[in-house]
């Protein structure tokens, strides 16, 4: 059996060049702070706002967007199950948001080469959260509030307060990709 160990780091948001510079592909990260949710249709609307020169519903500088559409909370819960959705569907919009100052994304699945290039150029990182672990991940979300596009229901933009939210660095700012590297190591 191969010997290996995983490094765990704690980070507090917002992200800075210094913080992202210290993250390496494959690191386990526990994230604390404010993150914003957005998925398919919310992204489309954010880009429409940028095109119009209008203000975004939140200051995107140094922020993380989490690709998630949670289940409705049961009474007493801040949020329902809240695991990541497939990030690739957001690829078409991501470069524009990174240009605006977006510094991190949490999702699952590989990003396009264009997104990976943008991340390297603008020093942004892509984190993976465990897909299908929505109940577990919801425990690390302490507060949730819809701040934009409420009409989209589960797809609305939410402001989340997270504590030690577990994620893995997929793409660091040095151009490494965990999906590529991981498969290379284990393919037979």
């Amino acid at each position: 059996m191969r010997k290996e160990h995983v490094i765990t780091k704690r980070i507090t948001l917002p992200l800075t060049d210094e913080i992202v510079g210290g993250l390496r592909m494959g690191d386990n990260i526990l994230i604390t702070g404010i993150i914003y949710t957005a998925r398919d249709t919310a992204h489309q609307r954010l880009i429409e706002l940028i095109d119009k020169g209008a203000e975004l519903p939140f200051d995107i500088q140094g922020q993380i967007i989490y690709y998630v559409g949670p289940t409705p909370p049961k009474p007493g819960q801040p949020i329902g199950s809240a695991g990541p959705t497939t990030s690739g569907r957001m690829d078409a919009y991501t470069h524009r948001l990174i240009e605006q100052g977006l510094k991190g994304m949490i999702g699952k699945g590989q990003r396009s080469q264009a997104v990976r290039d943008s991340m390297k150029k603008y020093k942004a990182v892509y984190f993976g959260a465990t897909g299908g672990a929505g109940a577990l991940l919801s425990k690390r979300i302490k507060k949730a509030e819809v701040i934009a596009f409420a009409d989209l229901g589960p797809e609305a933009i939410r402001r989340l307060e997270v504590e030690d939210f577990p994620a893995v660095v997929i793409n660091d700012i040095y151009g490494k990709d965990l999906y590529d590297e991981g498969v290379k190591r284990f393919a037979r």
Partner: protein
Amino acid sequence: MREVAIDEITQAVRDLFIDANCTLGEDVVLALQQALEKEESAIGKEVLTELIENARIAQQEVMPICQDTGLAVVFVELGQDVHLMEGDLTEAITQGVRDGYRDGYLRPSICHCFTRQNTGDNTPVIIHLEVVPGDRVKIIVLPKGGGSENMSGIRMLASAAGLEGVKEFIVQRVKESGANPCPPIIVGVGIGGTFDQAALIAKKALLRPVGSTNANLELAAMEADLLARINDLGIGPSGYGGRTTALAVHVEMIPCHIASLPVAVNIQCHAHRHKEKVL
């Protein structure tokens, strides 16, 4: 002729969707535990440990295993000696989905194809109705997540492609899916029939217990070979690299037209949720 009140169907569908979304099948939990013992990737082991813990939390707190509580797929095996009383079967099932998604705090995930406006109650439902001998009604619910469904595929191969061509298509589909369908996955394969039937039997193949052996020896051998080849891809849990890319491959096959060789691959995530009830 046996009478079954239509309200019983609505109630069963409601309860089954809540149960399916919150309680992972014991067969899947066992397969995840066995995968954890065999996994060589440290990060892969962590993912598998999280998934087992996630299933425990979901069951204990009656909350969804995954936030994608799926498109509602319902298989009905209706005994031909059953008389459904006082209502419309499709509407009864649809109401059961509405009730289940509302009462179970499940996510409404269905929208208009182009405006993307959510229908709000997770309907319409996809219903597959089969009339069978007997006086019972069997209802199987399968809330199907979008991420894994998106990675599915169908191909009308030339007969010259043969068994190896079919296998290559299946393995390639899994390879191209990478991390997107939330591995470790369950791979449902339908071979033969028509374009539509191949896809339907691929989906039905998912319903067999994970870890079971195909009763057909030819297909059992195919499943074993496919599982080994898929796990040799190295995609691993969450796609981070590892030995466990699939927990199972289930193949169903029916004869096809002399001009055809259809093959459908329906990919299912590790949150493999389905429950059934006989009325």
